[in-house]
């Protein structure tokens, strides 16, 4: 199992979600974050005060997947999240030691497999 952590542009989030959905990746968590990865800062002025905003709004996706799902997941994000300009974000693939599904107590691979793909539980 792996945990795929992706930082993407907020304005690209919908396209990324659509691409993930097409790749049948359905379980994920997102959070709004701010970060900086080398893109040019944006300049804002409030009355006499001018500031450079170094941290840009981004969206962080966390997706727990079984090993054979890593590649389609990463490919979906790469293609849908790209504009070609600095600031498109990063994808990190991390090893996962253990996964539990809280509702059933299932572990590991069973826990990251969406219920629609299993035999119906009841």
């Amino acid at each position, binding site marked *: 199992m792996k945990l795929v952590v992706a930082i993407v542009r907020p304005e690209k989030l*919908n396209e990324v979600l659509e691409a993930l959905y097409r790749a049948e990746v359905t379980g994920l968590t997102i959070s709004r974050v701010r970060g900086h990865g080398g893109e040019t800062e944006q*300049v804002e002025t409030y009355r006499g005060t001018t500031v450079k905003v170094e*941290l840009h709004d981004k969206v962080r996706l966390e997706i727990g997947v079984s090993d054979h799902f890593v590649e389609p997941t990463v490919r979906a994000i790469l293609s849908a999240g790209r504009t070609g300009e600095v600031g498109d974000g990063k994808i990190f693939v991390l090893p996962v030691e253990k996964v539990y599904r809280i509702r059933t107590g299932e572990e590991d691979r069973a826990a990251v497999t969406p219920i629609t793909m299993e035999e119906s539980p009841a």
Partner: protein
Amino acid sequence: MLIATAMVLVMTPALGFFYGGLVRAKNTLNTMMMSFVALGFVGIAWALIGYSLAFSEGSGLLGSFRNTFLNGVRLESHGTIPHILFVAYQGTFAIITAALISGAIVERMRFGPYLTFVTLWSIVVYAPIAHWVWGGGWLGKLGALDFAGGTVVHINAAAAALVIALVLGTRKDYARQAIIPQNVPFTLLGAGLLWFGWFGFNGGSAFGANASAALAFANTMFAPSATLVVWSLLDLMRTRKTTAVGAATAIVVGLVAITPAAGFVSPLSAIAIGGIAAAPSYFALLWRARSRVDDSLDVVSAHGVGGMVGALLTGVLAEKSWNGVGDGALFGNMRQLGIQAIAIVATIAYSAVATFVVVKVIALGFNLRASVKEEGIGLDVTQHGEEAYSRGEGAILVHADGGI
């Protein structure tokens, strides 16, 4: 009239809040600024040129240049009030009419071309139509009844809104992503303040603290009440829930519908107008949202459809025993309904064509639309260099010498 003028002026910031709540957070300031800047750009255009074209003596189609740069406008009386106050009062109408159009083009139009557009539009489109109806022009002579601007303000703005929305095209996310209001309380606040200001808009159009003003005032209260009731019931029947955005919209639709009729119909007729006006606008909104027309904040459904219903019903329900001016179709004067229809058609035709010309002329010199990337980032940062909800994290102060 001083108070009425101030009340109409406050309707434009109120409209900014109404519209600003309905867009996405990254376009809040841009949307509100589209209303606020009209206070400046249209206000000055009105004082220097627009007023003269609308209200100085001229032909049936247009005023003259006699009062340009406020030439000859002093403290002498103009009807019941000092001439300069009349200029100011009418100026607040020009300002809000131009600002109304912005609802059709939010989240995608570049700001410079927008400034050019509202300024030119107030002179080229608003002033002539105001002249036709109120400035001694042909529609007024024909006997068209428009108490406070159903055709001049609302139908006019809606026709222009439809044209500019079609010329600009849809937002990149339109019908592809969910675009939902960022701050519904703003929209409710705007609707409430609009209602307050509208008492000056309709009541003030009697040009005196008289019986006609009292009638317009009461009608401005009860018509939107009726719209709110009918709209809420339609909402309940359709979705089992009464929505806040729906309530805010209903108030505006009711106000629009009673505008042409305010001083001409009985209070019971006003309630009928308000109630009847709810349904066409309600279903126009539903239809529009499924169409390819990105009139983003539904200027056409609220102001166009509501305005037409109001203008036509004025021709039906006007009562001479209340207004001392004329009867409508229900009281034996069928001709009035025809005149109202002519006023509507003429306004739409001129506004649509002239708006199209103005937009196309500006497009010769400017790129009207923000780029896809700018639309993605949002127009607040790209057009204004500000954010509505900035958190200040990661913001570094830039010193005057340019260093950090």
